[in-house]
């Protein structure tokens, strides 16, 4: 990119000033008691992204999702009426897990223990010798979990009493963008998964600041930084309730691509154009949805990244590259292979340094860590999480319950 375009690049330092400048207490990133509060106050009561409608193409399609932080196994299923419902994967007789397959298609969920038979709507349809029980079939329906979709993405909420609709939680701007993003039309995805010895926020924070790019991705990330923007900082930050976005710099320098690399990337751009996915308001935007979900708006490398907590010091990342429609040509398939492997290559580079940060935290050597102005998205996640944890602590204290 030429110097003229970038001469005016100024990091948006002012846009994070409202978040304050205080050092950040380190305990929130390793302390088991703090994690337990986050688990209860956030993960057990917040809309969480868990899948995509393309995984449930027809009536009877289901997926099973394990949520280790809740010790929960969920079944998400498309009913005969086309409606997506989520249930605990737990027989209402004696709690046996119903389904061991990770995905499939069925007409009923049948418990392997005593053959209780549940419909796709969760109702108990039949159970052997049921007249000997002291309950009714109506009372034995599968335990339902709130579920909703936005932009094709499936969200669940483990709080059965949750009253805030998904769209209200996401807010107008995020809903608008998710519905326009390619993911809303996606028909398939490629996926990689990693387990990491790091607190979920340590893991997540790495992916919402660009300060590390030139040090950790000196080669794979080289197009992102130039003399005009030596750290490859974003142009803009925006904040939407608990959610946040960054807008990538427009001066990314693809001129340094080798001929082979340029050929491989060009195929991806060509098919995004042909499918009408570009231009799109999401092209250069990166969405960080509270608490643990990212979506990169770019249609050529349209990835989501969900970070699940496993314990105070362990997390799991699930990265998906979403694609719209069946590939129509060999080049389009090649673009998908390349887009996927490049994303995996780049994400791989972060793993070691996140683990090293966690080991440093676990030592207890630091009382505080520091976020600079351009790490404002990390500061925002910390602030939002702490506010929710504090409100939860106060509410439980007011009720006289232990937090």
């Amino acid at each position: 990119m030429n110097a003229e375009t970038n001469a005016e690049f100024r990091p948006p330092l002012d846009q994070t000033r409202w978040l304050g400048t205080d050092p950040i207490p380190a305990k929130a990133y390793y302390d088991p008691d703090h994690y337990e509060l986050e688990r209860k106050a956030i993960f057990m009561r917040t809309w969480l992204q868990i899948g995509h409608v393309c995984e449930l193409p027809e009536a009877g399609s289901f997926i099973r999702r394990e949520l280790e932080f809740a010790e929960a196994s969920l079944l998400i299923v498309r009913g005969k009426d086309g409606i997506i419902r989520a249930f605990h994967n737990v027989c209402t007789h004696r709690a046996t897990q119903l389904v061991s397959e990770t995905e499939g298609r069925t007409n009923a969920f049948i418990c392997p223990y005593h053959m209780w038979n549940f419909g796709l709507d969760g109702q108990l349809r039949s159970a052997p010798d049921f007249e000997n029980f002291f309950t009714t079939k109506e009372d034995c329906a599968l335990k339902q979990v709130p579920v909703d979709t936005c932009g094709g993405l499936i969200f669940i909420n483990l709080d059965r009493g949750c009253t805030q609709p998904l769209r209200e939680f996401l807010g107008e701007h995020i809903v608008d963008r998710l519905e326009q993003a390619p993911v809303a039309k996606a028909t398939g995805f490629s996926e990689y998964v990693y387990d990491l010895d790091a607190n979920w926020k340590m893991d997540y924070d790495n992916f919402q600041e660009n300060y590390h790019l030139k040090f950790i991705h000196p080669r794979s990330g080289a197009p992102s930084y130039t003399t005009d923007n030596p750290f490859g900082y974003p142009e803009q930050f925006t904040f939407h309730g608990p959610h946040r976005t960054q807008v990538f710099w427009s001066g990314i320098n693809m001129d340094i691509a080798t001929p082979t690399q340029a050929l491989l990337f060009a195929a991806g751009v060509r098919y995004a154009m042909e499918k009408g996915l570009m231009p799109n308001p999401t092209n250069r935007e990166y969405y960080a949805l509270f608490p643990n979900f990212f979506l990169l708006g770019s249609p050529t490398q349209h990835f989501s990244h969900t970070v699940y907590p496993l314990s105070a010091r362990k997390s799991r990342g699930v990265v998906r590259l979403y694609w719209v429609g069946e590939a129509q040509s060999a080049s389009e398939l090649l673009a998908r292979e390349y887009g996927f492997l490049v994303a995996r290559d780049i994400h791989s580079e972060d793993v070691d340094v996140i683990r090293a940060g966690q080991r440093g935290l676990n030592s207890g050597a630091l009382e505080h860590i520091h976020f600079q102005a351009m790490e404002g998205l990390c500061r925002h996640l910390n602030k939002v999480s702490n506010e929710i944890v504090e409100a939860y602590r106060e509410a439980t204290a007011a009720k006289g319950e232990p937090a």
Partner: protein
Amino acid sequence: MSASLSLPAGFERLEHFVGQWLADTTAERAQRRTDSTPEERQAFFAAAAPMLEQAMAYLDARPLAELNDEEKRLLKLMFSLAHVQMAVEIHREMEPRHAMLREAMIITHSVTDII
């Protein structure tokens, strides 16, 4: 060259790479990259990269669903070239360390495994 290693006419010079580099899934192709030596990657890249444009033009001239076995092999070989490109042109001497880091990222689904 046995039938199972043959490529379409015009691409014969890549046939001796088929044994090492042809794999059916993205996960297997990633593993082939990891298991290879720098010399093997360099030799494959040097031979295949100059033929990438020609190979894709040849394959794109045919409906994807109707590719025959030779054509599918050529496409899968180009998939492997895409993996090797990152090693040879981007990571270069850092590739062995990078291979260790990539092990953490387990491939669970790939839309390109259909060919």
